[in-house]
């Protein structure tokens, strides 16, 4: 059996970008308090959505990444993932079900363990700026969840 220790992504990423000549190390978000919203109702009565970091197509590359939403009942066959920071040597994203669980969630709805699919899934950009995420992107997701009557969100960052 190989190494079972989780990868130290923060240390590894700092060293990787330092080797690229970037002098200022990235500062990850950190909070000592953690908010908690208990389930307001059983999952079998809840409306559930999915939030992904992938984008619809290549027009959303780099700084063009932005909030988007789509039909959770008819999600696309795949998303644009090429410019996200995932392990392109070890794996691939040709199977959408490996990073966006639309089919799995629909199966749980069909089985009755989840009440219903929300009308939309949401896509949020991974942003270098915490402020961008906290003041622009997260409020857009929140507003959309409220508009759609979402009870539970599954967040699946690549």
């Amino acid at each position, binding site marked *: 059996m190989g190494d079972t220790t989780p990868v130290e992504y923060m240390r590894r990423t700092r060293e990787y970008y330092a080797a690229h000549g970037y002098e200022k190390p990235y500062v990850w978000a950190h909070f000592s308090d953690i908010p908690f919203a208990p389930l307001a109702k059983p999952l079998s009565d809840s409306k559930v959505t999915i939030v992904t970091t992938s984008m619809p197509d290549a027009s959303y590359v780099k700084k063009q990444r932005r909030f988007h939403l789509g039909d959770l009942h008819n999600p696309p066959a795949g998303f644009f993932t090429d410019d996200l920071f995932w392990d392109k040597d070890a794996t691939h994203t040709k199977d959408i079900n490996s990073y966006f669980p639309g089919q799995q969630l629909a199966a749980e709805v069909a089985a009755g363990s989840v009440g219903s699919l929300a009308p939309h899934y949401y896509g*949020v950009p991974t942003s270098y700026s915490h402020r961008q995420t906290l003041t622009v992107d997260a409020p857009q997701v929140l507003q959309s969840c409220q508009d759609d009557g979402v009870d539970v969100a*599954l967040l699946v960052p690549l």
Partner: protein
Amino acid sequence: MSLVARVLEENGISTIVIGSAKDIVEYCGVPRYLFTDFPLGNPCGRPYDHTSQRLIMSQALAMLDNCEVPGTTIDTGLVWDDSASWKPNFARVGDDNRAALLAAGDARRSAQAAIREKNISAQ
């Protein structure tokens, strides 16, 4: 994405983060986190493997049902492969690629400087 989870929770929407960058997610602090020790890119299961994909979904729903303590992490127990050879390879820096990484960084900075210059000229 962990920041989005926090904002939704603060506003009464229950969330779970499903993914692989354990240290980053836990450092931020999210209410419920389902961790799988896979390479980044497949938070919802191995490609074309319905068994692991269904397992992760069912574990996520069970965690939503049962978790009562914010900041809880559960490990799905799934293993990518026995060798774990992908772990040391990701974002690797070594004597054999250090010069190439620095050259790539230099090229990127030059390209970004050229774009900035062009934007200033256009103003």
